[in-house]
């Protein structure tokens, strides 16, 4: 990938190739733990940590990993860092650790992390891999916090535990239930689809005008 600059490596993961909203990777944690902003932040923090550490380690060791067993090697590295993240959370954020429960361990099978290792860290320098991991991690965080924000504000009328609308607000209980997760992500995707289509129409319209003007 000699054609991209370091800046592009970093920016790409945030919006254009956002892991959750565009590539549809890592959907399980994005839906399961976003019933409050605090949980979403804890989950993104843990994923960010695992992703950056494994990207650095794997891009460092890429010459020593035989091609045939690379997937198993990646999984092992990821599992080691997930165990670390699990212990760190248990020590420093016991409340969040209890809320997230099994989903911390399930970071191992988050396809987003394995995907970045296979498609980027295995072929690029340590610095580039770290930038790529940061970009992807930030993109993941944005998506999760957005989902968590929508669901917490509508579902409980508060943001990070602070009440927003006063006591008269009737919470939309469905938003914090599992069904709310599916619906929120569904509507976010519809909105993104609409924005993309509009942009496409606009550029198409401009091209037409240009063609008319030149003729």
């Amino acid at each position, binding site marked *: 990938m000699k054609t991209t600059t370091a800046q592009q490596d970093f920016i790409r993961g945030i919006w254009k190739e956002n892991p959750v909203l565009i590539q*549809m990777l890592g*959907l399980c944690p994005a839906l399961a733990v976003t019933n409050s902003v605090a949980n979403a932040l804890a989950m993104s923090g843990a994923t960010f940590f695992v992703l950056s550490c494994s990207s650095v380690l794997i891009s460092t060791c890429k010459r020593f990993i035989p091609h045939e067993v690379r997937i198993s090697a990646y999984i*092992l590295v990821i*599992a080691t860092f997930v*165990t670390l993240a699990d212990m760190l959370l248990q020590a420093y954020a016991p409340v969040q650790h209890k809320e997230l429960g099994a989903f911390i*361990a*399930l970071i191992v099978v*988050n*396809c987003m992390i394995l995907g970045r290792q296979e498609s980027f860290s295995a072929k690029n320098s340590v610095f580039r891999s770290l930038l790529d991991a940061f970009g992807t991690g930030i993109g993941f965080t944005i998506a999760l916090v957005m989902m968590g924000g929508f669901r917490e504000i509508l579902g409980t009328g508060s943001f990070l535990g602070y009440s927003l609308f006063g006591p008269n607000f009737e919470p939309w209980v469905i938003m914090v239930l599992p*069904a709310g997760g599916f619906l929120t992500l569904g509507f976010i995707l519809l909105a993104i689809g609409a924005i993309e289509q509009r942009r496409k129409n606009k550029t198409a319209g401009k091209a037409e005008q240009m063609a008319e003007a030149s003729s």
Partner: protein
Amino acid sequence: MSDQTLFSIFFSALVVNNFTLALFLGLCPFMGVSARVETALRMGLANIFVLVLTALSAWFLNTYILETAPYLRIISFIIVIASLVQIVEMAIKKLSPTLFRQLGIYLPLITTNCAILGLAIFQTNRGYGFMQGLTFAVGAGLGLTLALVLMASIRESVEFSDVPGIAKGTGLVLIIAGTLSLAFMGFAGLL
């Protein structure tokens, strides 16, 4: 050891705490292979098979090996699942080439299915014994298959209806899944 009855474990995993629709496990195949009922059914059956094997090996690991080293749990589970899927794949290839062709790409994909690792971890956290673990695995597998097949049949009919352009794709699938998840909440009073 947990003192739930086998019956309640089975129905809880099958419908009330359905892996896909209530716990969001195994969403990748749910989005990926739910376009046709036939493939969805096959994927579900392959999943049941691997889930049962995983439950057995997770029980074995927990009882005989991991007691002295609980911090190795995540690593050892994922290694066992990955090698298990490989062994099953080789065995099926040797014993029944027809079935192997039918399952195709779905078999190796099961390794990265969060439902499998999720099952092993839930089983450990809840302290299920041998029979309880086995019942849990069968219930969860049937629940996954049920969700997959329902989704696939809905998507097959959606294909023939006129939806707006922006809704073609994952957005609509997620909203259908949300509606299904709402419907499954009705089972909550069952237990």
